[in-house]
Structures are given as structure tokens and as C-alpha cells.
């Protein structure tokens, strides 16, 4: 076992060697521009892209013509939100999303507001799931788009996508989902789930960074988005720019591998994740954040009360994990996702996200359990809050000097 151990697979994943192998020829021998229609160099590159388009489409039950390649999910999210608003603003100016979305969605929505759009940011329930009644109440005749993420990046909860898209369609709105954390991890099917637009990324599924895709439905209804970059009119005019051929080939291969291995992999990871979780919640005052039934197989977000997340991560220096603690960001604000579950700030500060992946072993999970337990216990010995808790002092009764 090599240290440090990587358990931050929601941030990014290592590239699968099989993906790298598929990409390599497209850097030199097959270097052509996929848009060069009049010589073999271009044709070879285009063939690679076409094949990748089929691989990506197959993983999400789409047709290849519905896949628009982008530089990643942030671009896909931006293109979907802003592109739909610009295309359909004559029909209506209202977009609905949730407070736990990725910043790429939230900030694109804020941009739309500056352009005169109206956006409703729906709260989520304590378990992180959207309340379908709240969604239905928020729908209006002006609603053109509902955008709800498939699986959450911080807590891993899976939204009731089929039900959400049905409500959107009932009121004549399109349904968009940021499915970055879900695609390749659990079965996603654009027709079964009623998805009109879907963002995905290669580097979360063992592919390269800097490439992703936007699925845009072509039939029932035919969806269009206004391009956000002007140029050569690539990707059916929706996304100009010379195609990143090696990256796209890598994304395709990554999708193919996920399609083949996802089912067995999800089983393996959920067993590991459950073991990690049950071993750590043996510790007093530790809590799992988010719904535990509707959840991605590889994520566990746990709060260890009376211990601060960044301090904890420093003790677990051989584990690469992530924390919702304020101290990990320059803003000093704890995770907005955890806060929107109704978690108090101190619990949000005390959270650690474990993200398992394709290359995580049982031995590594055992090690992670040991180190985490030891570190939490050590830091509680240093914690004045733990001492007060043990003495039975109600921390809420103290007048804290906020600084």
C-alpha cells in the first residue's frame, strides 16, 4: 500500500491506463483537425470523434447526434443555462434550480438574472432531497427550465430525477441536469429519466481533464441552445472551437469502460463505503450527512462533532479527503450545501467527505478507518468543546464572542 491514499474521487479521478492508451495516438500520428473535411488527416481525427460520440451517447441512452463536446462540465452547465435562456426567453423568463447545485449552475443562473431572467432557488429537505411539492408550487407559465443535479458532489444524494422531470414537462418547461457525479457511477438514461439537457465531465469518470459534454435532446422536444462562443460553428453550431480530439477520444473510452464495469463496481464500492461509514459512526457524536438510501455508491460525508474539519485533515495527512470546513476556503464560510441541509455551522465545520473510486482497495479503506478514528480521538482531547460536552455543558447556553 502506497501513502498518501487518495479518497477524494469526487474532486477528480486518476485516469484509467486504458483511457490513456486510447488517447495517445491522437496526440501525434492521428493529429488532424476533425473539421478538416478534405484530407485523410482530418478524416482519421473525425472518425475518432464520431466513435467517441457513440460511446458517450450509449452510456446515457442517447443518440450520437445529441452529444455536444465541451471543455468540461462547467462549460456544459453554462451553455445549458445561458443558452436555454437566450433561446427561449420570448417564451418565458423563469428558471428553477436548487440551492445545493454546483457553483457552475448557481453562478450561471445569477448571470441570467442580470440579463433580466427570474430564478427560483429551491431549498432542499434535511436529507438533501428536493421536495416535489415545493417544485410544483414554484412552477409558473413563464418557467422555461428546471435544472436539478442528478447526484450531489458533497453528500452524494441522488435526486428523484424522473419525478422532477415529469413536473417540469407537465408545465411545459425543459429539464436540465448536472449529472457529473452520477454518469458512469449509476445507470443514467435520458429517455427513462426524461432529461432534455445533461452535463457530464471526463475527469470524474477516470478520463482526462479539460473535456466534457452536453447532451441536448433532438426529438420530443427538439431542444436548441444559443451558442455562448462565436466561431466556426462546430458541434451543430452550438459550440465553436476546434475539437479536443485526444480528450474526446479519452472521454469516449472512459464512458465505454464505465458502461462495462459500472454495475459490479457500484456493488464493490457501496460495500466498502458502508464498511467505512459503519466503522466511523461507532465514534460518539458522529453523523452521516444526507439521505443514506438514495445515494451514490462511492460517497460518505460524515461530521465528527467538536472537531474542526481542516484540523482533522491535517492529522490525517496520509489521507487525501475533503472537508466542508470554512478553513479550507478563503471565504471562511462553511459548505453552503451542508448548511442548506439545516446543519448548524459547527457541524458543517466538522465534516469530512470520503470519495472512493475504481482504484480504492480494501486495505486502503482499513487504513483510512484506523487513521480517522485515531485522529478524531486525538483532536477531541485537544478540543475545549469536547471537554464541555463531556462535562454536560450546553454549548448553546454560552455567549460566544463571534470574531
Amino acid at each position, binding site marked *: 500500500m502506497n501513502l498518501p491514499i487518495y479518497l477524494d474521487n469526487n474532486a477528480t479521478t486518476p485516469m484509467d491506463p486504458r483511457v490513456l492508451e486510447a488517447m495517445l495516438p491522437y496526440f501525434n500520428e492521428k493529429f488532424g483537425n476533425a473539421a478538416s473535411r478534405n484530407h485523410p488527416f482530418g478524416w482519421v481525427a473525425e472518425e475518432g470523434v464520431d466513435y467517441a460520440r457513440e460511446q458517450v451517447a450509449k452510456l446515457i441512452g442517447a443518440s450520437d447526434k445529441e452529444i455536444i463536446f465541451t471543455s468540461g462540465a462547467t462549460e456544459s452547465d453554462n451553455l445549458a443555462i445561458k443558452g436555454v435562456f437566450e433561446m427561449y426567453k420570448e417564451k418565458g423568463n423563469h428558471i428553477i434550480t436548487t440551492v445545493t447545485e454546483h457553483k457552475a449552475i448557481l453562478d450561471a443562473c445569477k448571470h441570467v438574472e442580470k440579463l433580466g431572467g427570474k430564478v427560483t432557488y429551491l431549498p432542499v429537505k434535511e436529507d438533501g432531497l428536493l421536495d416535489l411539492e415545493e417544485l410544483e408550487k414554484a412552477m409558473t407559465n413563464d418557467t422555461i427550465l428546471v435544472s436539478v443535479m442528478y447526484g450531489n458532489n458533497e453528500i452524494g444524494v441522488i435526486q428523484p430525477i424522473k419525478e422532477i422531470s415529469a413536473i417540469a414537462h407537465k408545465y411545459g418547461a425543459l429539464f436540465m441536469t448536472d449529472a457529473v457525479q452520477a454518469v458512469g457511477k449509476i445507470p443514467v438514461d435520458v429517455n427513462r429519466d426524461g432529461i432534455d439537457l445533461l452535463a457530464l465531465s471526463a475527469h470524474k469518470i477516470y478520463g482526462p481533464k479539460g473535456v466534457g459534454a452536453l447532451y441536448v435532446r433532438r426529438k420530443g422536444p427538439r431542444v436548441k441552445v444559443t451558442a455562448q462562443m462565436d466561431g466556426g460553428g462546430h458541434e451543430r453550431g452550438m459550440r465553436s472551437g476546434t475539437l479536443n480530439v485526444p480528450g474526446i477520444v479519452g472521454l469516449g473510452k472512459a464512458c465505454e469502460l464505465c458502461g462495462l464495469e459500472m454495475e459490479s463496481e457500484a456493488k464493490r464500492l457501496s460495500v466498502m463505503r458502508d464498511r467505512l461509514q459503519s466503522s466511523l459512526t461507532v465514534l460518539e457524536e458522529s453523523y452521516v450527512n444526507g439521505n443514506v438510501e438514495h445515494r451514490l455508491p462511492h460517497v460518505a460525508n460524515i461530521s465528527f462533532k467538536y472537531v474542526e474539519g481542516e484540523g482533522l485533515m491535517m492529522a490525517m495527512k496520509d489521507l487525501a479527503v475533503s472537508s466542508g470546513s470554512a478553513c479550507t476556503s478563503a471565504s471562511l464560510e462553511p459548505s453552503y450545501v451542508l448548511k442548506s441541509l439545516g446543519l448548524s455551522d459547527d457541524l458543517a465545520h466538522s465534516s469530512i467527505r470520503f470519495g472512493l473510486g475504481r482504484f480504492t482497495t480494501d486495505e486502503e479503506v482499513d487504513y483510512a478507518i484506523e487513521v480517522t478514528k485515531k485522529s478524531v480521538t486525538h483532536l477531541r482531547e485537544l478540543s475545549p468543546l469536547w471537554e464541555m460536552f463531556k462535562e454536560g455543558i450546553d454549548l448553546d447556553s454560552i455567549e460566544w464572542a*463571534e470574531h
Partner: protein
Amino acid sequence: MAYSEKVIDHYTNPRNVGTLDKSNHKVGTGLVGAPECGDVMRLQIQVDDNNMITDAKFKTFGCGSAIASSSLATEWLKGKSIDDAMKIDNMDIVEELALPPVKIHCSVLAEDAIKAAINDYRVKNGMAPIESEKVHH
């Protein structure tokens, strides 16, 4: 962001972790910060009849820099008079631990904890608390 060697040293081997009897009139206790902000420091001093600090203890809920700042503070307090201890400046801590700008608030909190502990001792022993003129933030 990488931590400095001194922060890692204090974090890994924190000095003077513990609790003094806060009901003892020769013990001053400072509890600063708030759980919501992700930092709470408790710093305690034991003072002798000549107003010299003979012992100091801390417990801190916070990031590595907050733990290191309070650990360092206890080291500096021991053997100082309460008047000299009052002069410890947060920037001395920043310099000693090579804290980056985003962690300066940890040193501010440590300075606040020192002053709060001294004032607690002063009030307990019939002296007026010393108002800090310095304004942080």
C-alpha cells in the same frame, strides 16, 4: 496550501494541552471564538503572588494553525509577568509560525485569548481589566 514546519511541529506535538482549575482565584481563563466560526480557543494561566505566570494550558477547536498559535502562546506565557504577557502581539505569532494571510485570524484569536485570560485573572484579584486599544479585522 502547505503548512510551515513550525506549525506542523506545534500541531503534531502540542505543548501544554490541558485544563487548570478555573475556580482557583490564581487561575485566569480566556475562552474566545465561536463554534460557528470554526475556531474556539481556551487559554488558562496560573499566576503567582508576584504576578508572574508559572503555568499555562490550552485546548483549541480549530484548524492546524489555530492549534499551533495557541500552543505557541502557552510557551511564550510561561515565566512572563502578566504585564509583559499583555504585550504579546498577534503579528509576533504570525512571524514565528510563518502564517499565511488567510490564517492571520488564528493569531488574532490567540492574542485575544491571552488578553481574556489575563483580564479574567485581574478581575478575580480586584484589578481593573485592561481594555485593548488595538482593533483587529
